[in-house]
Every structure is written in C-alpha cells, then in structure tokens.
C-alpha cells in the first residue's frame, strides 16, 4: 500500500474537523432543499378501509390490501385526495387536472408489496410557495420558499430490531414488523432549492417547517405531532462557493423529527461540509442520519450506489382528475391561514412586532384568540397565556396547548378578576385548581373558598378592627400621611387571609378616617 492510499484513507475514514460556522459562510453560500412528510389524519388508510389509530396493538389494523395479500387491490381514499388538494391550495400550488399514482419499486421487509404507491412525474399539486419570517438583529426578514410539489403516497410498516445494543439492524438478534402503519396516507411536500439565505439558512429551514406545520394544523388535515412521527423532514444541504453559480454536492439527512433538530441538522451539515471542503476533500452525495443526542449527522447509504426505483404508473389505480368546480369549492372553503391570521390579530389587538413574535413563538395565537372569543380582553388573555400558563407548561415540560385548561376557563378566570371576585393572587390559585382537575373555575372558587371578601359589612368589620388595633398608624393617616395606610390595608388583608379586595379595603379605611384618598 502506498502513502497515497493512506492519506486518502484518512480523508474518508477520520472525518475532517468541523469548520466554525461563520468561517464556512464567508466562503460558501448554503443551498437547502426540504422534503417533508405529513401523515394525514384521515380515519382510514390511503388505499383500504383499515383504521389509522396511533398506538394500537401491533398488526391489528391490517387487511388483505395493506398486507399485500395476493389478489388484493388498492382503492384511493377520497378524503386523502381532498386533504392534499387543500394543502396544495394553501401553498399557492397549481392543482393537476389529471395525475397518476406510480409504483416505487424496492424490496424492504416492512413494505408489504415491495413497492410503495407514490406519485412520480405527475404530482397532484405543483409550483407553489410559502412565505416565512425569520427574526434577525435588524428586524424580521421574510423569505419566499418555492414549493416544487405536493404529492400523495403511503407509509410503510414499522420495523423494530430486537437484541443488540443499538436498536439498529446491525447486531440485532431479530426484527419484528408492525404493519399498522403500512398504508397510512402521507403527503410529501418538496421545496424548490432554497438559496440566498446565507447565515440564516438554519433559521429559514426551521421557520419553513414551523410555518408548514401551522398551515397543516390550520387546515385540520393532520394533528402534526412530530414526536409521533406524523411530520418528518428530510433535509438536503449543499454548499456553493461564493461567486459561483454551480451548486455543490448535496447530502440528504433523513428523518429529522423536531423543529430544533431541523435547525441543528442544517447547521451541522454546513459546518461538516465546510470541514470536508477545507481539508481539500469532496462532499459525497449520500443519505445521512441525524443524531439527536450529539446534534451531528452520520453517513447512511451512499446515493451513488442507490437503487433504481423503476417507477411506472400504477396500473391498479385510475388517474386522479379532480373536478375543477370541486377544487374551487375547496379553495373557497379554506380556513384563515396562519400568515393572514397573524396580520389580523396584530391589527386587531394592536400588537408590536415583538408582542406578535412572542405570541408566535409561544404558539399561543389560537389559544389567545379563543380566550378573547370567550369574552376576555386581548391584553388579559395574552398576559395569562404568555406568563402564568407558559410558565406552568415549561414546568410540566409540555406544550401550552396540552395544558388541561381551556381558553373558555381562562376567560372565566379573567372575568372573575375583572368583576373583583378574585384578586390576581387568588386567580392563580383558581388556575392551579383547574389544572389539578378540580373542575370549572367557579367550582374551584367555591370548593377552595377563594372568593374575595368585598362584602362591605364583613370588610367593614375587619377595617374597624385594623384601625382599633393600630391607632397610632390611623392617627398618622388622619394627619395627612396617607402613605401609611398601607399598613392598615396589610392588616385587613391578613385578617381576611388575603381574600379581601385590597383596593376596596383602602377606600373604606380612608372613608372611616375621614381622609380623601
């Protein structure tokens, strides 16, 4: 073996050091491409009537069609087509007048037919865009992400590898397959190459997936739980030397399954590819896997020896030719989309850029809006969700929307405070009760005895006692040292175990002492 081989070996075997992010960006322009799979929330599968419930006993939601028994045939789920068209319309796509399903042929144990029914050169939706906003130190910047296509396909089964240390196929004793997921409808959304994002590339990628997720959620076509795999991303990254017009070699990082991971995966690939190029190597076109624990990517199979999928139109399925009138009806029936909603609430609630951004980042617009709809003033609703409830969600490690309190319940708490029945402090205890499952806010108030003492006779008694017990303080107040009234209010609050309305108590004390407040 000559030394050339040795040095060659070190270039591929021992990975070159990462190059700091900013340094890479000085020399290269990242080009991104995102392929996102969304599992649709239809009740039945893409090509058969099996249920799609997540978490069912393995292999209980299967039939001859999704198990690919000999002779079984697929029939398209019309609801899935409708969902695809609605997403296509929301992404400003053109909707094909006629398109077909194609078979993507490859052998894999969790794919029952050993081909996947997908769409190839005739996607249902094509040529659209999605605008996303990224915060920069110079203020928000908008990017228009081109959408190449949205197409329909079916999911595979799920393989688990048993035995061995890694849970991966190598070293496993055996593998088991659950076909419940086989045939679940998927939409694949493919972007056009995303260029000219510079150092913002990771943030743009994240903003795109976030915006897409919100769009899908607004359309109600999927519950988009990334942790259950109902939204999965493949991230393509390449580096183009600055001043060049030719793209570099891309890598595809598969199954990046959280918003944060999307950002990290792009960033890591930029640094890694920068390192390879800086060491004089070349980027290999390959599939890579994202490692959640380290935030890095590792090589999977090389695309250069990738298989030929032998796509051809699926002869078992007739072409999909959506009626134009139906498409227009679907367009007219689209709900308000996230971008429009943001513009509207910003105006309606009179928000600054920062206030809007906080709402967006906390994923709280819908919650606040529903709370407002239930009667709360926007500022109060916002305050509750962004402060108190966000804190609770963080403590519990859950999403805001997952907290066991409804916008209507929050609105009721706000109303109780506004009418003076609760102080803010008491209101927080009511929220505790609701979150603890003690019932509606009014029930918690009742059960815990939290109502503010604003009955003047009861309060008056406490006031009289406070004045009598603190004659010296009362004298100071009578003599014009009004600031001293705080001590008397404190005494009243103490006597009423905090249930008094402090403002009313103050007013009564001043009245008793014949002083103008």
């Amino acid at each position, binding site marked *: 073996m000559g030394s050339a081989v040795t040095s060659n070996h070190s270039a591929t075997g021992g990975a070159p050091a990462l190059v700091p992010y900013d340094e890479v960006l000085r020399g290269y322009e990242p080009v991104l491409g995102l392929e996102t799979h969304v599992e649709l929330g239809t009740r039945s599968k893409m090509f058969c009537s099996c249920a799609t419930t997540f978490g069912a006993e393995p292999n209980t939601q299967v039939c*001859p069609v999704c*198990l*690919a*028994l*000999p*002779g*079984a*045939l*697929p*029939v*398209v789920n019309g609801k899935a087509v409708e969902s695809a068209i609605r997403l296509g319309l929301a992404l400003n796509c053109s909707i094909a007048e006629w398109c077909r399903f194609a*078979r993507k*042929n490859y*052998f894999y*144990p969790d794919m*029952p*037919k*050993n*081909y996947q029914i997908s769409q190839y050169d005739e996607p249902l939706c094509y040529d659209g865009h999605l605008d996303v906003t990224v915060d920069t130190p110079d203020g928000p910047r908008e990017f228009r992400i081109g959408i190449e296509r949205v197409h329909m396909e079916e999911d595979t089964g799920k393989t688990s590898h048993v035995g061995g240390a890694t849970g991966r196929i190598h070293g496993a004793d055996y*593998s088991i*397959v659950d076909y419940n997921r086989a045939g679940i409808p998927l939409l694949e959304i493919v972007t056009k190459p995303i260029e000219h994002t510079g150092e913002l590339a990771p943030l743009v990628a994240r903003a795109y997936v976030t915006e897409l997720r919100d769009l899908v959620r607004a359309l109600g076509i999927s519950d988009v739980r990334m942790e259950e795999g109902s939204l999965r991303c493949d991230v393509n990254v390449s580096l183009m030397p600055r001043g060049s017009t030719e793209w570099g070699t891309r890598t595809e990082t598969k199954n990046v399954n959280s918003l944060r991971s999307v950002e990290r995966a792009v960033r890591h690939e930029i640094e890694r590819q920068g390192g390879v190029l800086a060491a004089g190597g070349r980027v290999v076109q390959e599939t890579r896997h994202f490692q959640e624990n380290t935030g890095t990517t590792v090589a999977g199979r090389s695309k250069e020896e990738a298989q*030929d999928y*032998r*796509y*051809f139109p699926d*002869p*078992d*399925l*007739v072409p999909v030719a959506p009626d134009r009138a139906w498409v227009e009806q679907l367009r007219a029936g689209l709900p308000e989309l996230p971008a429009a909603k943001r513009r509207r609430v910003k105006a309606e609630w009179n928000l600054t850029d920062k206030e809007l951004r906080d709402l967006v980042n906390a994923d709280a617009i819908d919650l606040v809006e529903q709370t407002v709809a239930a009667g709360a003033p926007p500022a109060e609703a916002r305050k509750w969700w962004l402060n108190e409830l966000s804190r609770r969600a963080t403590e519990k490690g859950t999403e805001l929307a997952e907290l066991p309190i409804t916008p209507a319940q929050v609105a009721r708490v706000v109303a109780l405070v506004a009418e003076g029945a609760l102080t803010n402090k008491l209101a927080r205890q009511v929220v505790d009760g609701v979150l603890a499952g003690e019932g509606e806010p009014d029930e918690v108030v009742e059960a815990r005895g939290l109502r503010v003492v604003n009955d003047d006779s009861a309060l008056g008694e406490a006031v009289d006692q406070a004045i009598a017990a603190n004659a010296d303080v009362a004298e100071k107040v009578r003599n014009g040292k009004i600031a001293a009234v705080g001590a008397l209010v404190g005494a009243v609050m103490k006597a009423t175990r905090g249930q008094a309305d402090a403002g009313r108590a103050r007013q009564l004390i001043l009245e008793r002492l014949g002083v103008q407040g």
Partner: protein
Amino acid sequence: MTELIRLSAAELGAAIASGETSAVEATQAYLDRIEAVDGEIHAFLHVAAEKALEQARAVDARRAAGEELGPLAGVPVAHKDVFTTKDMPTTAASKILEGWQPPYDATVTERLRDAGLVILGKTNMDEFAMGSSTENSAYGPTRNPWNTERIPGGSSGGSSAAVAAFEAPLATGTDTGGSIRQPAAVCGLVGVKPTYGSSSRYGLIAFASSLDTPGPFARNVLDAALLHEAFSGHDPRDSTSVDAPVPPVVEAARRADVSGMRIGMVKELSGEGYQPGVLQRFTEAVELLESLGAKVVEVSCPSFTTALAAYYLIAPSECSSNLARFDAMRYGLRVGDDGTRSAEEVMSLTRAQGFGPEVKRRIILGTYALSSGYYDAYYGSAQQVRTLIKRDFDAAFEHVDVLISPTTPTTAFPLGERTDDPMAMYLADLCTIPTNLAGNAALSVPCGLAPEDDLPVGLQVMAPALADDRAYQVGAAVEAALRDRWGGDLLSRCSYAV
C-alpha cells in the same frame, strides 16, 4: 350421472330449479366424473369434494325454503387457481404459494357463491398465468381431452380441460394475452374475454394488472353468457372496475342473429404462419356468416403486427412489480430461515426456489424494461403501441360491428413441443393479444376440426369495449348454424364426450 353431466349449465340449472334433480346430485355427478377422469387429464390442483357437497346442500336448502335463486343456482363451477377462495388453497400453480389459504374470497368467487354456484375445486394453470400451454404449472401439466398428448392451451388450461372433459359444466379463467380464448379454442369450447374493467380483478392474483380480465369457459355460448352475467358488474374494491351496466350478453346469446351485421376480417391476423386447417375452417366460418346475412369485409389493422412485442414488454414489466410481494415475509414458501440468514437472503433463496423458469424470465425482462435509461425505449414505446392498437380498433369499429380472426394460429400443439422455445410459445397468443392491449371484448367459439389433426379450431369475434353482447350474438349465430350442420355440438366428437 352421465345424463346430468351431459346437460348444459342452463339446462342443469333449470332441472335443479324444477326439482327434477338437486344441487347435491349434480355436484356428486361431477365429483364422480372428476374421480374417474382427472387422473388422466389433471385439470384440477384441488378438488373440494366435501365443501362442494356442503355448498350444494345449502343451495338445496335455500331453494326448499322458497328463496328465489338465479338461473345457475346449484350448478357446479371450477375456478382457475388464480382466484382467491377463503375455504380452499390458492396457489396460482406456483410453489411459492403452496398450501396458502387466503382469508378472503375474490369478487368473482364471492359473486358466484352468492348466485348459488357450487365450487368443485381449483384448476391447473401456467404458474401465475404466464404461458400458453399450462406446462409452466409447478404441479405438472394438464392434458387436452381431444388428444392427451396435446396441450390444453394456457394459461387457463385446467379450466378448459375440465369443461371439455365434462369434469365441470362451467369454469372461470383469466385472460391477459389470450389465456381464456386460446385454451377454449384448442379444447373446442366457448371462452370469453370480457371488456377490461367489467369483471372485477379483486382477489385475482395479478400477473399484468392493466391486462388481466376474468372471464367464462362453457360448452356453449348461452352458458358462457349466464356465467359472465353472474360475476360481472361494477366492484368498488377494484379501482379499474367500470361503473356501467353489464352488456346484455344473455339476451344476445339467445338472439343468435347476424343478419345485417357488418363484420370485419382482420387482414393482419391470417395468412403466412397459420396452420392450413385453421385457415380453412376460418374461411368456412366467414362464408357461413355471409350465408346468415352478415356483410363481411376485409379490414386492415396495421398496428396489430406490433402487438406481440408491446405485450412482452408491458406484461413482464407489470409482473416484475406485482410479484415482488412474494418475499417469504407474510405468507407462502419460506426458504433458508434458519436464524443465521438476513431477511434479504431468505427472500432471495425463497424466490429462487419458489418461482419457475418462465416466471423468472418475465420478472427479469420486466425489471430490465422498467430500468432507468430503458424505460422510455421499452415500457414507454410499448404504451404508445398500445394507443395505436386502440386507434386501429376504433377506426375499424366505425365501419364494422365486430372483427373476426382465427383465435389461434394453430391447433393444440404436442406437449413439450415449445417448452424450450419461448418465442414459439408466445406466438400462440398472436391473434388474441391486440384485444387485451386495447381493453375491448372478444369471444372464441368452435368452428370445426382442422382436417390435418382432427383438433378444434376457434373463431375469434372481437367487439368494442362494453359491447360484449355483439360478440355473443355473432358467436351464438355461428354455434347454432354449425350445430345444425353437424347435427350436434362439436364437443360430442371429443373422445371424453359423454
């Protein structure tokens, strides 16, 4: 017994309905016949004697309870082993599915059960319906009742032999490139390829999805029409199923009249390479049709000459994908799973052992034709040829009501003659393939014995899509006229006739 099995299906159905005989008696008669002759013929891969009698008893009980039943209730039927049956094995004559019992019925199976037909068993075929002689069965060949040294046709050769040997009054088959019409022709039967999409493929083990069409075998045109009507019609479980009424085939079979009809002889489907006796009987059939008042003209369909080539790209391409599911994972044969081999190795060993040579040949051919860089030249061009063939049919049907040709270029050839020569075997489907590529309907009806070998010759009648009734009408007219001329059915001259 002989009396019962000699009856046509229509007559037998009527006799059962009138109480002259019962479904159980009829079924027993056919089971006895199978017992007597199938050792020689080998039409069946599976005989379901007990279940058949059970079904027959159920039909008799329904009748006794006063239920209105269809014209074929209680009449036995044999299913090509390519249709799934939930109470008996289904193998497609392949080792890879040996012993597999499906958990569900094909639509064809289910509809015939509902109509009260009694399933005698499953018939032999070329493995996965790939072949023209039934010699590609993994379970041994079937013999032609006219001459047991000859092939019964294929791929539905078990079905044709069973009906010709009076082992069943009716049988189902599938026609992908001629797999019903060619065996019907060489066994002296009526066989029909209905319009694509008018009979459901659900539960039919796929060979080539865009071509596969279930259809009937019978000893006469009316019986074929009754069976056709019983299993056809829209099926929501088959996306390619046509949502249209079944053409009035039974009515057409009873009308049997060609006076005033315009009939086109396809110029490209005769001449050189055709057996003289076949051409002679075909010419006589043309004269017969003219004598019955039809106007026969010659029609040219130039694209038909490229049909065979296009077919042998499209069918293997689709099969290469359709047969990928036989991977030892979920059902059927599993080879080499000893705990040391990977899933991929087990798949590979299983497929190597489980598939026969013709199936492998076509999977390889199709895999190649679909490969990146070859797709346009092969699969793409073949689809264009398909469009041209459709246009030829459309143009012809502007001038004529039906087209005719010999069903096959030759009569039944000797067993073993073409097994080492795939190209010669493929030529057996020369006349039948254009109809599969275009998706329209065609029927084969006996038109005599070739003088040189005393074997049956079939006349093919091709009709436009969803005008299957026209083919029946012409077939029935030819059948009636020839029956008068011969003083009986052609089949009565077969050595297995009863």
